């Protein structure tokens, strides 16, 4: 399954051009179970990308184990296997804090993973043009409720219910790189109770 093609949208909606190898420069690579394939394909195009790469795989279960082994076989500098992204965050913070200029960040997987790790990296001072990204896996968004500020992960329908305040929110394409989230806005604010039929979010 190649990089997802999203339909063109507004300027704040992120685009994921796909991973391009930058040779043997120092690198941090972060992927979930679906994104790991993109890292393997990257290494197949240019094996030297792994020479100085610290790989962080955020994927649980049997699929995670299999991917961890497959990535290990590419002989990167190191592979850290974490059950999910939340568990990987302290490690990522540390890697970013210690990184030197010239480090590339390769991100592959869900929009939530790409958005969240990008936000972390930008905050650490990594320039935006040092980040490579490729979308893999199901279409699901990390949404912030503009009303209660709570974040709901893995949203697949529009509208959806905020997992914090319970308001029904419609899914905007407006995206904050600082927060790594899309914006959700109350869908029935003017006409309480009148809620459109939820639709599956499309690319």
């Amino acid at each position, binding site marked *: 399954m190649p990089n997802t093609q999203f339909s063109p949208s507004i300027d704040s909606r992120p685009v994921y051009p796909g991973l391009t190898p930058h040779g043997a420069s120092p690198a941090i690579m972060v992927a979930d179970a679906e994104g790991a394939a993109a890292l393997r394909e990257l290494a197949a195009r240019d094996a030297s990308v792994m020479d100085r790469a610290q790989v962080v795989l955020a994927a649980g279960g049997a699929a995670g184990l299999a991917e961890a082994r497959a990535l290990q076989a590419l002989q990167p500098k190191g592979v850290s296997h974490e059950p999910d992204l939340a568990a990987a965050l302290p490690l990522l913070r540390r890697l970013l804090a210690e*990184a*030197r*200029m010239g480090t590339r960040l390769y991100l592959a997987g869900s929009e939530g993973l790409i958005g969240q790790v990008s936000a972390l990296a930008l905050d650490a*001072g990594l320039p935006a043009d040092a980040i490579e990204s490729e979308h893999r896996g199901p279409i699901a968004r990390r949404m912030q409720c503009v009303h209660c500020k709570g974040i709901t992960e893995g949203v697949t329908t529009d509208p959806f219910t905020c997992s914090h305040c319970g308001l029904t929110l419609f899914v905007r394409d407006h995206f904050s790189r600082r927060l790594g989230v899309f914006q959700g806005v109350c869908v029935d604010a003017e006409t309480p109770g009148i809620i459109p039929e939820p639709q599956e979010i499309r690319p």
Partner: protein
Amino acid sequence: MSRQMLLRVTEVEPLTPLVTRFRFEHPERAALPLFSGGAHVVVEMPDDGVLRRNAYSLISDPYDGSGYEIAVRREDTGRGGSRFMHGQVATGTDLRVSLPLNLFALDPRAKKHVLIAGGIGITPFLAQLRQLERLQQPYELHYAARSQAEAAGLKLLPQTAQVHVHISENGDRMDPGALLEGQPIGTHAYVCGPEGLIAAVMDAGARLGWPPSALHAEAFAAPPPGEAFRVTIGSTGAEIEVGPHQSLLEALEAAEVEVDWSCRGGACGRCETGVRACHGRIEHHDHWLSPEERAAQTKIMPCMSRFRGDRLVLDL
């Protein structure tokens, strides 16, 4: 065109045989607008019937409105602005000076700043140093000069652990790669000096995987001389002759054709002018137009660019 102030020269100090420092103050001692490190002013020089306008980086403390200081290197083969400053300006001379404008600002988000200067390219950094000191941001400065005698910066730089001087005559050549290697994430590098130095720093950055957004170069320079050429004003059909040491902008001004401008160095975009017809080749020397725009030959930046060919009709 920027707003101007009439300022009086209050100090003239030779720093080296070629470089002189000038201080400007308001004749009534009024406070001048403050600025940010890296800003320049455009000084207007009435030179024997020709009105010259040159941009100079401010080297004084950006938070001190009591005066502006610049350092001018005499270019004997140049277009005359620096010769005017060296030959005809003395304490007490009144000159028109624009408000400060910054096209080479520090990125305040940087976790660290690496400043790299060659020769007279030290000037914008002198004001930036004061700003960095005031804001207590980490930095290092590297200053390269050919010889001790020519190194005007030596008289103006503080002697601190963050300031490194490389005099090539003493066998100490600056190595841009070594300066950029191993810097922490969030470092920004800035370079100002001869084109060769700028290219060397950019190359080293690219080789080390620095993203372009973290590498800054002082983009504007003095308009290059060249062969004389003629242009036609579209609206009136008037023909204007541009001399070898004159810029197209200066020639238009001398002919009283109105063109907007600000930096006079090809960096701000203000003087962008449409081209109605071009039989020949525009020599683009600006940093404003995109490669596609250059190739199309439908726009020209008169402050820097020249023309070679039969006919150039400007949309003026």
